[in-house]
């Protein structure tokens, strides 16, 4: 890398770690954390792109794409991506890495923070609290404050790793983008199976005392997740081939969900 590209200071990266707390500021089901993810990086993207409106716009557009990762670990990802932005890596590389990394980070974060640490902390602090001791909530607060502070070294780590990986990435950029896209598309396939939930509640009586549940006896046995897959591909088709506005698709989805809920189908 060339030193002249370097505009972000250590202090900036520490600030980035603190701003990463805003990840979910405009959380929504369509893009999940995309708004806050962009927001936290904006001051630094601005510093990198300065008067280059087009570059800044491209970076903002990329960051506004769907992302759902773990708030405690996102600083690592932001640090890494900003080091790539700083070196003006191609948009495909930056986007590919982002998409490849956010899912695994979410998985690791959920496993560590929600499924391991929380039950342990609840067990310890609730038992203190129920004896009327303030140690319970204080201990709980202290541990989670410590975890929040971990964002700072994690963000620095992401940034440093990104810088040292750049020469390698640059040399291999095209081949690397293809590999990153493959990883990204694989993960998107998995995301559809994990995050899109459509469960049909309809039950069909076939004979006396015998009913067939469309979901558990039919879809789940023949092709689990076929409805989430089908609906996502329908959205993909409408967005790409028919150029339908995503807002329309959201509204239709919303109305349809309430309507089918009313009928008892979903």
């Amino acid at each position, binding site marked *: 890398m060339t030193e002249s590209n370097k505009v972000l200071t250590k202090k900036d990266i520490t600030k980035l770690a603190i701003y990463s707390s805003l990840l979910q500021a405009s959380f929504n089901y*369509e893009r999940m954390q995309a*708004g806050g993810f962009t927001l936290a990086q904006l001051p630094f993207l601005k510093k990198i792109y300065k008067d280059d409106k087009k570059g800044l716009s491209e970076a903002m557009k990329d960051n*506004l794409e769907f992302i759902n990762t773990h708030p405690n670990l996102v600083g690592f990802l932001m640090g890494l991506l900003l080091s790539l932005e700083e070196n003006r890596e191609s948009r495909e590389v930056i986007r590919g890495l982002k998409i490849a990394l956010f899912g695994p980070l979410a998985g690791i974060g959920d496993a560590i923070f929600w499924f391991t640490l929380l039950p342990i902390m609840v067990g310890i602090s609730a038992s203190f609290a129920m004896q009327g001791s303030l140690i319970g909530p204080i201990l709980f607060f202290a541990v989670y404050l410590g975890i929040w502070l971990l964002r700072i070294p994690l963000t620095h780590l992401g940034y440093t790793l990104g810088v040292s990986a750049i020469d390698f990435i640059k040399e291999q950029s095209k081949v690397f983008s293809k590999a990153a896209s493959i990883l990204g598309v694989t993960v998107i396939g998995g995301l559809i199976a994990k995050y899109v939930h459509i469960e049909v509640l309809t039950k069909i009586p076939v004979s006396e005392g015998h009913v067939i549940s469309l979901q558990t006896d039919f879809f789940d046995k023949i092709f689990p997740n076929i409805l989430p897959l089908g609906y996502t591909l329908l959205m993909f088709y409408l967005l790409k081939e028919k150029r339908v506005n995503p807002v329309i698709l959201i509204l239709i989805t919303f109305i349809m969900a309430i309507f089918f809920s009313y009928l008892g189908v979903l």
Partner: protein
Amino acid sequence: MESITLTQALLLTLMAIIVGIDFWLEAFFLFRPIIVGTLTGLILGDVHTGLIAGGLTELAFAGLTPAGGTQPPNPVLAGLMTTVIAFTTGTDPKTAIGLALPFSFLMQYILLFYYSSFSLFMARADKYAEEANVKGLVKINVITTLIVAISYGIVVFLSVYVAQDLMKTIVQSMPAWLAHGFEVAGGILPAVGFGMLLRVMMKAEYIPYFIIGFFIATFLPFSNLLPVAVIGVALALYEYFRTKEHPALYNNVIASKGDGYDDGI
């Protein structure tokens, strides 16, 4: 029977706004019932009840996490109302947990509604990104967070001071299909986001990887996407080495501008 003074109600409202924003951002974990219950107890001048109610609610809520994208019953209202109900009515905090649940559900539904409807802000965000309008994007994030904060303030003030009974009736009389409809919509909406991602990334040559990722996540009984990501890495490495070892393929990839189907095999 204790009653809540206006000052206490206002302090509780302020506290709920702060921890409510923390729940929205998932930053400091002040939103967990153990902290909320204790703070509520402090404001009401009965820390002991707050600690016990907070501890009990925390245990009840330990398994209810937003991991994986599902919104659990709201922990802020659960911790707060369990303590308030135990304090004002003198009921056992164990019973108060159940009485506080409608309030917890009400806040959950409100957030579910926001999770869905805030999707509408994203078109505006795209426009701001197009124009490189930094201020506009900041504004969107401020507005959404403010809406959430104000909602917490209103719900808590109404619940603890103005109309505790009325609120409970409303929650209980909300038609189940409407509440359920919000949940269903929440489950389906990510499909639109993934559709948009696919629009950007998908090429004919990537279809096999898409199928592999989908089927692994469908059939592996694993709570997160790590196995999919690991297999994705393996596939990416395989393609990477294969491309590097075959100069013809390598040149093909280098020469292609990143679009178009390559049939170099």
